């Protein structure tokens, strides 16, 4: 009676992810879970201040991930710059502009949903692109011991040989200076505004 439905012979790809075999793997998964959870909370919560706080946790988890990858100095820098600098900066700004209230920024459900679907699709596609690449899932570590140690960094950053990074380093330092000046100039009150405020008072 019914036509024979020939099921397509689907071959599931071999799952390339490393299963939690050792302690390192377990640690990675835990850190990753914490990182993703806090990141989602960062984006999803309504209150912008809460969002900043979750961002701190996310950054800290990232720093731990760096530690797992034997990049101690970077983990340190991550915590110092991001958690200690940037996020504090953000929090200050939030407080400066805090009396806007939360209701002003509610977004409509379709927009949230559309954004969600788009980002999911994006991630899905990217992941699907790299999954078949077998060399990515070998697990072999090629980095030498202490590859991101202070000594290595110091030699490379200040070296001006063929593989020295002295020029980018100097450029970044100039950039930082410029940033400082720019930030002050931009955020400074102009004369008109000062007068206006005086007039209001």
């Amino acid at each position, binding site marked *: 009676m019914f036509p024979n439905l020939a099921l397509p012979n689907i071959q599931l790809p071999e799952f390339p992810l*490393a299963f939690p075999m050792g302690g*390192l*793997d377990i640690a*990675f998964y835990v850190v990753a879970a914490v990182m*993703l959870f806090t*990141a989602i909370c*960062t*984006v999803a919560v309504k209150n912008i201040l809460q*969002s900043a706080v979750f*961002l701190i946790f*996310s950054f800290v988890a*990232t720093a731990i*991930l760096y530690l797992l990858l*034997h*990049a101690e100095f*970077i983990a340190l*820098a*991550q915590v110092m*710059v*991001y958690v200690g*600098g*940037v996020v504090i900066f*953000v929090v200050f*700004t*939030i407080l*400066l*502009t805090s009396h*806007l209230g939360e209701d002003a*920024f509610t*977004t409509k459900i379709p927009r949230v949903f559309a*954004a*969600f679907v*788009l*980002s999911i699709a*994006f*991630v899905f596609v*990217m992941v699907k692109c*790299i999954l078949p690449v077998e*060399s*990515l*899932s*070998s*697990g072999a*570590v*090629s*980095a*030498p011991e202490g*590859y*991101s140690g202070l000594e290595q*960094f110091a030699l*490379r950053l200040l070296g001006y040989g063929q*593989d020295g990074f002295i020029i980018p380093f100097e450029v*970044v330092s100039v*950039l*930082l200076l*410029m*940033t*400082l000046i*720019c930030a002050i100039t931009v*955020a400074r009150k102009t004369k008109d505004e000062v007068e206006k405020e005086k007039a209001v008072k």
Partner: protein
Amino acid sequence: MNLMNCLILAFLLFGIGVWGLMRRRHLIGMLISIELMLNAANINFISFAYFSAHDATAGALFSIFVIAVTACEMAIALAIIVTMYRRHKSLDVDQLRDLHD
């Protein structure tokens, strides 16, 4: 723990950043999402350096630069945000868009 795991993690983080960037109307919220995305990029740098790079130190160094430039970017962006807030009394992207034309 292999490169694939790290990359997928980074993609997920990046996707979350994208989601946030699209759904937020608050300028600072959008900045935070951008931070997440940059962070994901940083993870990629480090994990490639760790697992497969010929010159591992260079990859790690790059993440240092990224962090530095990110900090700069944040500083400027926040300064602009403060000015904008002062001028328009708003940080709503939709409203600001209406204001400019």
